[in-house]
């Protein structure tokens, strides 16, 4: 039963005709079980087919539908209109990213940063691929939290350091680096820590902590970054004090 109205104030940017983004308002009916993504889809289906935004799974798994809702980075599929509106729901593209169109932002820079930390299992010798690499529950527990990352980019939108220094590797890439460093099957920790122990690496993080606040999967990238600082320091000290052992 759609017995109430809400105004969606949506940031629009049409590169073919707009010199800068501006807001457009839409009044839509809503029910208590509608999420912000439902509202955007209602607008697109019935009012304005030119409104552009990303979405896919509608169940908080794919990480496609991130946007700033009333100034806070959120997955629009997991944010109920009833919880966020006071007559108006303002939807902006994720901050800290260039806008391609309307709510669609350019993730290329993030993907390059992610690739730089080798987000996959690295082994020098894969050995017999017909045998499985056994992991015990405690082995999985070591990286399970970071493995929940869905690359939704809310943490990048929340991080003021990313806003100040676009070269900063950022929270999600760091969390995923730790996920693989902690994997008992992986041998790529040294290469990842070398990458992260740079000017654009973990030392840019000033521990604002907002990345962990907005993370919809409780990945705790802020905690991961602090752990990586410790691991990078240990690696550096080991190379300094025991160069022969460190090179092995």
């Amino acid at each position, binding site marked *: 039963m759609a017995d109430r109205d809400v105004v969606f104030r949506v940031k629009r940017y049409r*590169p*073919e005709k707009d010199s800068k983004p501006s807001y457009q308002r839409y009044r839509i009916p809503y029910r208590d079980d509608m999420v912000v993504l439902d509202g955007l889809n209602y607008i697109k289906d019935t009012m304005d087919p030119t409104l552009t935004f990303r979405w896919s799974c509608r169940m908080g798994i794919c990480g496609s539908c991130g946007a700033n809702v009333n100034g806070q980075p959120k997955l629009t599929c997991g944010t109920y209109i009833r919880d966020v509106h006071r007559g108006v729901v303002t939807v902006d593209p994720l901050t800290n990213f260039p806008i391609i169109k309307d709510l669609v932002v350019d993730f290329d820079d993030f993907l390059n940063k992610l690739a730089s930390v080798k987000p996959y299992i690295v082994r020098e010798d894969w050995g017999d691929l017909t045998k499985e690499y056994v992991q015990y529950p405690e082995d999985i527990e070591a990286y399970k939290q970071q493995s929940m990352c869905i690359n939704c980019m809310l943490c990048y939108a929340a991080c*003021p350091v990313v*806003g100040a220094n676009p070269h900063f590797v950022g929270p999600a890439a760091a969390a995923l680096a730790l996920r693989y460093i902690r994997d008992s099957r992986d041998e790529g920790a040294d290469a990842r820590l070398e990458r992260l122990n740079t000017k654009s690496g973990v030392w840019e993080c000033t521990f*604002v*902590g907002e990345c962990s606040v907005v993370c919809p999967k409780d990945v705790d990238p*802020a905690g991961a970054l*602090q*752990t990586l600082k410790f*691991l990078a320091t240990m690696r550096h000290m080991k190379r300094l004090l025991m160069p022969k052992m460190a090179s092995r």
Partner: protein
Amino acid sequence: MTARPYPWKRPRGWWLRNPRYLSFQLREAGGVVSALYGLILLNMLLQLRAGESAYTAFLDTMRTPPMLYVNLVLFGLVVFHAVSWFMLIGKAQPIRFTEKPIPWKSAFAVNLVLWLGVSGAVVYLIFGGL
């Protein structure tokens, strides 16, 4: 036609848009004023070395109302810096002493108690027991 993405620009006053950003900025400011207060203490040692009259003049300056207000602001920011760091300590535990991470509230409480204990001991040493 390939349209250029609209670049994102950080707005002025970004740190006023979220209370946690404001808290972060105050924590950082607390770090800066800690260093400034260190300079004041170093100057005090210099005046002490210069002789009694120089040291007395320094103390007189420090007792003027403007300097008392400055000290009050510095003290407030340093306390905020310390307390907000204690709140973060439990949220980042690269070394685990226990099987499960220590709850951040417990880590905060332990740090706060230790800090108050050490501060109390320093006050006792300086003033000979108040």
